[in-house]
């Protein structure tokens, strides 16, 4: 479980996070949603240590990540997988090397064992046999799936995804969402997804955190989100033309 306790973060005079507290449970797909500039990516970066909070704590199964030194953090980070918005695959490496990279760095497995793991995760993301392709030869959706494969290669306990659907067509987007949810449940991973995609919210939003102006504005599930009377959340949820049209038809 990941516990975020009273996180504050400013950039100069701009206070981006204003005391956010939340729990993220294993085996549950948690979504952090909100408009642009609401602080969702900053919250995620504070959780994984890419940004340092001004105050507050992040606990990984009770271990206080924020007060750890670099070496202790490295140990926790070996348990973290992350899918970046742009996939962040290493351009100079093939798909296989990208996925094998953390295994090469941190395990003493034999070549055959590593290859077996690479092939397993590639199969898991429906990309079997794509080992020798370079990132430049992949489509956006395939890059995301390789990103997921790399993120789960080390069997992480915690999985973070920053806008996993950005730049994808609706079909690929749904495929990525379903894959993330399956992996979360199958391996009992604590998954935190930053998104503003309402399809994802309605599809896999078991636990949703809505941020507004750097504060936790609402927390609930996809079943509760359409029936809430929270004004800002409703404005966010029903902002798309599609939703508007569907509601009118109703």
């Amino acid at each position, binding site marked *: 479980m990941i516990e975020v306790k009273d996180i504050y973060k400013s950039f100069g005079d701009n206070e981006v996070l204003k005391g956010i507290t939340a729990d993220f449970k294993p085996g549950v797909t948690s979504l952090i949603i909100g408009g642009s500039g609401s602080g969702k990516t900053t919250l995620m970066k504070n959780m994984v240590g890419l940004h340092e909070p001004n105050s507050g704590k992040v606990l990984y199964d009770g271990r206080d990540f924020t007060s750890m030194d670099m070496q202790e953090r490295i140990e926790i*980070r070996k348990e*973290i997988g*992350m899918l970046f918005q742009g996939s962040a695959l290493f*351009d100079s490496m093939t798909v296989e090397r990208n996925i094998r990279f*953390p295994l090469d*760095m941190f395990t003493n497995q034999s070549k055959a064992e590593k290859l077996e793991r690479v092939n397993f995760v590639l199969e898991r993301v429906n990309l079997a046999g794509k080992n020798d392709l370079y990132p430049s030869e992949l489509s956006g959706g395939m890059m995301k799936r390789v990103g997921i494969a790399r993120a789960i290669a080390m069997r992480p306990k915690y999985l973070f995804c920053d806008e996993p659907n950005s730049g994808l067509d609706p079909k690929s987007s749904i495929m990525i969402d379903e894959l993330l949810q399956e992996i979360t449940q199958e391996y009992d991973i604590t998954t935190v997804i930053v998104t503003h995609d309402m399809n994802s919210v309605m599809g896999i939003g078991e636990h949703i955190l809505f941020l507004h102006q750097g504060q936790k504005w609402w927390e609930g599930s996809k079943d509760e989100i359409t029936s809430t009377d929270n004004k800002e959340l409703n404005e966010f949820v029903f902002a798309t033309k599609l939703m508007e049209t569907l509601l009118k038809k109703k």
Partner: protein
Amino acid sequence: MVFYHFGKYILMLKAVFRRPEKISIYKNEVFKEMVAIGLGSLGIISIISVFIGAVTTVQTAFQLTSDLIPKSIIGSITRDSTILELSPTICSLVLAGKVGSSIASQIGTMRVTEQIDALEIMGINAPGYLILPKLLGGVIMIPILIVIAIALSIVGGYLAGVASGAVTANEFTQGLTTDFIPFTLVVALVKALIFAFIITTVSAYQGFFTNGGAIEVGNSSTKAVVISCIAILVSDYIIAQLLL
């Protein structure tokens, strides 16, 4: 501002020299960088060096109008100029442009495409993994390139001198072997080592702390070259003052 960047640069170097996660992977990266920096720059360094030597010889001969000065001095001047100054400094300035801009743009692109964040999330010491192999590749290969440059400059000087009739082959060779001070080679190698360190680390610093997108990567690359060139010239003067 200067102190802020200098402090950040020192902290980055501290992270660069942290114990590598796996030596074998770093070793492979060092070999790759040695090939990229060494073999990749050999062509341009060879061409520049031959012409540096040729021009030095022709211009020295042009200025030696007195019959009282033996022509063999042209060989000595070409030798000492290329060993002490022209080969290490001009080649390093060229390498700052070629290798430095490449390092800054490679690392800068990795920064803006979140590849460095990905390394850090995996628990990898990103400055160590990205910069140490380039630094080692540079400090191994740039002195070798400078030694090759010195040799080619002297060959270029010899060919230009003999071809233009400014000096005979015997006179040039006599000049080369007269009053040679081996310590000048040590000075050249010290310069090469320090310049290599400057080129790789200053460029890596500029790339590593790039913020933004493609335009900022370009700016980092330009800054890397400009700052490396200035740092090379300043340290050139300091080394000359200290060692000669």
